[in-house]
């Protein structure tokens, strides 16, 4: 089982934005040289600072936007050279859950119709079979079947988020790309959704790419982690390894800043945090993007961009001059 379901090589994305004085145009490098693979049936979590390019990467992987550079193979098919029928097939195999459910659900359609749409377009199921599938999917995401008659604005934030998850799962995709899929859910419903995804993974070899800022969720669901900072991958490897022994200083700060659900301990650790302003992709610092906030920063870090490299016998890669 070593053929990856998804293989990204050197993906980049740049946007042209209004910048500077007199509205001069500027390039914004949202993503730089992202290379990684996703194995069948495994789950990869993407974590990183807000604005570091996670959603941009997800949009490229789900073929919503083409990369400025780099190649992407999904189930062995290079999307740059694939035929349109291959692409159509791939689009049903790879589904995305968007970060802002309110934006991604059609406000003029009822929940039932939203969930039915992919079935109508892509399957030959009868009306009754579709209705049955919708009811069972709603139940699996912890929602009352009666909610199928509602419009999205009549739902709570967490209910909308679950409709978005249900929609993405309607066609039993091979790959699920989920952008903060449980961020609006209370912990009990969140647990139910995470259990559901784990089960789908076991039963159908579902592969997952999971963007989340919640490291306790990541710890629970991810096999591998990919840490990003200002458009670059700075550390990847086995989730358990990285969470136990982070090697990139930014990963270390992330882990240390996770809020703990214990009021007595929480107040002691309030001071720990990251000093300095986050860098801007519109005017990235020279050298390592993290150097202005990094306790280990040296002369070399200010001038030379660190490459992702192997630092030990494991599969871990780290982009830091000082990691070992």
């Amino acid at each position: 089982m070593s053929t990856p379901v998804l293989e990204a090589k050197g993906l980049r994305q740049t946007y042209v934005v209004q910048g500077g004085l007199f509205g001069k145009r500027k390039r914004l490098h949202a993503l730089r040289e992202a290379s990684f693979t996703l194995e069948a049936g495994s789950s990869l979590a993407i974590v990183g600072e807000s604005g570091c390019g996670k959603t941009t990467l997800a949009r490229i992987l789900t073929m919503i936007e083409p990369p400025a550079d780099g190649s992407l193979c999904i189930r062995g098919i290079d999307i740059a050279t694939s035929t349109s029928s291959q692409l159509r097939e791939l689009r049903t195999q790879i589904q995305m859950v968007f970060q802002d459910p309110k934006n991604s659900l059609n406000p003029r359609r009822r929940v039932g119709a939203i969930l039915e749409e992919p079935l109508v377009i892509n399957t030959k199921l009868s009306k009754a079979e579709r209705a049955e599938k919708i009811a069972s999917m709603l139940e699996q995401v912890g929602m009352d079947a009666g909610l199928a008659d509602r419009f999205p604005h009549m739902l709570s934030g967490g209910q909308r988020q679950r409709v978005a998850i249900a929609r993405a799962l309607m066609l039993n995709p091979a790959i699920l790309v989920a952008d903060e899929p449980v961020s609006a859910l209370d912990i009990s419903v969140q647990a139910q959704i995470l259990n559901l995804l784990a089960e789908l993974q076991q039963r159908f070899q579902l592969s997952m790419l999971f963007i989340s800022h919640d490291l306790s969720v990541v710890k629970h669901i991810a096999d591998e982690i990919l840490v990003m900072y200002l458009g670059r991958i700075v550390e990847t490897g086995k989730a358990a390894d990285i969470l136990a022994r982070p090697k990139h200083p930014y990963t270390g700060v992330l882990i240390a800043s996770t809020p703990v659900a214990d009021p007595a301990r929480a107040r002691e650790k309030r001071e720990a945090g990251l000093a300095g302003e986050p860098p801007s992709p519109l005017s990235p610092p020279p050298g390592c993007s993290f150097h202005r906030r990094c306790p280990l920063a040296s002369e070399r870090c200010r001038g030379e961009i660190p490459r992702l490299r192997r630092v030990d016998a494991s599969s871990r890669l780290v982009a830091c001059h000082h990691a070992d």
Partner: protein
Amino acid sequence: MSTPLLEIEDLCVGFASERGTLRAVDGVCLHVEKGEILSIVGESGSGKSVAMLALMGLLGAEATWSAKTMRFDGIDLLALPPQARRRMLGKEISMIFQEPSASLNPCFPVGYQIEEMLAAHTQLSSTERRERAEELLRQAGIPDARQRLKAFPHQLSGGMNQRVMIAMAIACSPKLLIADEPTTALDVTIQAQILNLLRALVDETGMALLLITHDMGVVAETAERVSVMYAGHQVESRKVEALFDAPRHPYTKALLEALPDRAPAHGHLPAIPGTVPGIDNRPNGCLFHPRCSRMQEDCRALEPPLLEDGDGLLRCFHPCGTES
């Protein structure tokens, strides 16, 4: 005790439907002191957002609501004509909405939207407004704030839009800030920065903060008191340490047990069995009884009242920590 800044007694909200009026919020009581941080937690769909929308006067036409008392800063909101009430909003009470797309206009640059807010509620000149908008974005942790003022919402990341909303909400120095899941799209380091910013406003200006969140780590680190909601009811309310140490309501206890960081990696998470009853099929008696491990005969038939319990409030016949 001084008179609280916000005092809500017996708030009820219903939605009209073919099956009669459905109660989304039932008998909620909230007291918030000046300079206090109160957190509201509860299962998805339990009525947290709807209760706050009722306070803000932002419910749609299909909703009906009532309250015995609703006072803010000595003013009886129930007696206030809608227009005067709306004027108070945005200035004295402001709200950060759960989804950025609910309050950011996609057609205008974010800087323009913040400046409009300042124009409506302050006497600042247009240059001062520009400077204040930039300052606010910087405080919210957005790098290159001056340039980013010109960006449209779709050109910013999910977490950046969330921070733009935070900047808008604190722009006019409100006396009460209602923050509905304000950090769901933020990584932990920026989340810590935002929570520090909000805490500093509370400490320095006496602003009160009503924080809706499902992130128990955030609750533990930020809130002084917590109010727990279930299916439109308040079920427990007390000081944060006491709530985490010795939860009294079985729902509160189950919620804390479902925390992913209290469960082993990749194990099955202890989600609370069953689902929260939809607003159209609420059970008789205690609303939590079908899922409750401490359920007894009386719970099926009678609805427990919200009573004083130690230093808090509790709605349960057979609370945890008492054997019967």
